[in-house]
């Protein structure tokens, strides 16, 4: 079988520093991301989803281990090179209300443009394509401030697409969205993985939608293990019951959701 693995963690340990104390949340992680796959990272609040993603995006130094992309250590890479490998969509508040969608998506070209960040014809074409792929091109000339939450998220995804990275990491991309926009966003991400060959990793609270659309899951269990595998396998193995401490909440394989 062809190996599509693009990112691999080796004995990765992540956590946070509390004053002088170091708290390890997850350790011994040997995870891999493949091109063309949508992976959902699920876990309880505080389990370490964001911490793990922040380590993978090199926003936080991991406590141990390494992250490799095509055999190269991601953390040792120059920032510029990294910005061409890994695109990010986070829930960080942005100050870009007075940018148009096209300008915002254009910022995604920064790793590829020159000193002053001017876009040439090719850049503009890539930006238009990214907006078209994300279904936001009809709003190209509108202010970010005038968009709904769902449209804003599409614009941010288009921005990551314009960055032309093989990997896209999304930290809670559906957190503030209504149900319709959640499904739309997840479908869009699935399309990007399956048709554009991106390796897409997202963290989510939305378990039933992740199960329906993700190819693979990374489950952070209550005993701080990360179980990985295809969605179907993990569901049939009963791994979903290891996600929450509360024993009265059980996963129901028929409805692909929790019942109590």
């Amino acid at each position, binding site marked *: 079988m062809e190996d599509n693995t693009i990112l691999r963690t080796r004995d990765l340990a992540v956590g946070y520093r509390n004053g002088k104390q170091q708290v390890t949340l997850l350790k011994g992680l040997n995870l891999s991301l493949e091109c063309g796959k949508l992976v959902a990272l699920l876990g309880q609040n505080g389990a370490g989803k964001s911490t793990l993603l922040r380590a993978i*995006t090199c926003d936080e130094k991991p406590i141990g281990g390494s992250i490799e992309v095509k055999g190269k250590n991601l953390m040792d890479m120059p920032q510029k090179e990294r910005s061409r490998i890994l695109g990010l969509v986070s829930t*960080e508040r942005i*100050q870009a*209300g*007075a940018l148009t969608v096209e300008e915002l998506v254009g910022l995604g070209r*920064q790793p590829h443009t020159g000193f*002053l960040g001017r876009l040439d014809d090719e850049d503009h074409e890539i930006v238009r394509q990214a907006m078209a792929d994300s279904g936001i091109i009809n709003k190209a000339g509108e202010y*970010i401030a005038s968009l709904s939450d769902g449209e804003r998220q599409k614009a941010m995804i288009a921005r990551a697409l314009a960055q032309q990275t093989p990997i896209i990491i999304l930290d809670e991309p559906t957190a503030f969205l209504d149900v319709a926009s959640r499904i739309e966003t997840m479908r869009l991400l699935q399309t990007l993985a399956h048709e554009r060959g991106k390796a897409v990793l997202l963290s989510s609270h939305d378990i039933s939608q992740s199960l329906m659309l993700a190819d693979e899951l990374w489950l952070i269990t209550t005993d701080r293990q990360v179980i990985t595998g295809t969605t179907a396998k993990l569901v049939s193995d009963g791994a979903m019951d290891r996600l929450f401490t509360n024993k009265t909440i059980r996963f129901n394989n028929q409805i692909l959701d929790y019942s109590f």
Partner: protein
Amino acid sequence: MTYRRYAVTLIALTLSLVLLALACLIFGSVDIPMSQITDIVMGKGSDNKAWEIIILQSRIPMIATAALAGAALSISGLLLQTTFNNPLAGPSILGVSSGAGLGVAIVILAMGGSLGGLFGGNVGSYMAVLLGALMGAGVVLVVLIAFSAIVRSNTMLLIIGILVSYLTSSVVQLLNSVATEEGVHNYVSWGFGNFSGVSVAQMPVYAGIIILALIGAALMVKPLNALLLGTRYARNLGVNVARTRNILLLITGVLTAVVTAFCGPIGFIGLVVPHIARMSLGTSNHSRLVPATILAGADIALLCALVSVCNPHGIIPINAITPIIGVPIILYIILNRRRIQYFN
């Protein structure tokens, strides 16, 4: 469409700049006939040597001083607003100006308690004052960086800036209590704000530093735009956030310090002008915002200069004028923040 708005705005701002500069040339405490002004400016001289001196050594330097000060403070405000992700940041409200002022006060006291060194003195003394201002502004900026890492709230950072201002002004008053009467008088009048403090001889240093720093700011357009998305996105776009922030704050510190050393701590321009630029252009895109902010800042400062010299009973302090222009604009912005795109 939006490009047209950009072009129209820039042309309007440039025209205003020319008109305001001409007005500052023509109007003043002394009435000089138009024909004489043209002759003097064209280099033909005038029979009235006093007029010649007024135009060449007072009005023209004042126009240049004001325009550059306005541009410098406004760019400082813009850089601070983007760096701290805080639309109400500015060199005076965050205490950078008062930090520079404290530096000036310390240097003046160390040099013997007189500000004569700044306004008439030799090169060495005004360079020392400049250095004092730079150090003062730098210290405040370092304090702000340190606090911004601890307090995440924008409002808290503003309050810290205001506290820093109180602290520096109390130190200045303590210094004044041991200074000579002349020193105190000079310091107080410096505090009023004044665009007539740069002599022809000092102009190259003043203008040179400001123009270099403004060019520096214009070269930071790309990372500034990335910072609109916050530090995490900026990093993901390949921006070295810590280094970028240090460069931006260095530029801010230099601009604020130079203006403060020569013109006094001038309020409101740095806070208000970036908003005028954003609202008239309808964008937060720095590649358009930087030129518009420079021009609008020069315009506003020249307007203040014009008002200040047009009083028949004497010159009005600049700091008595800037709040009258600035406060209504800030109130408008605060009241309309839901309707202004760049807040949302």
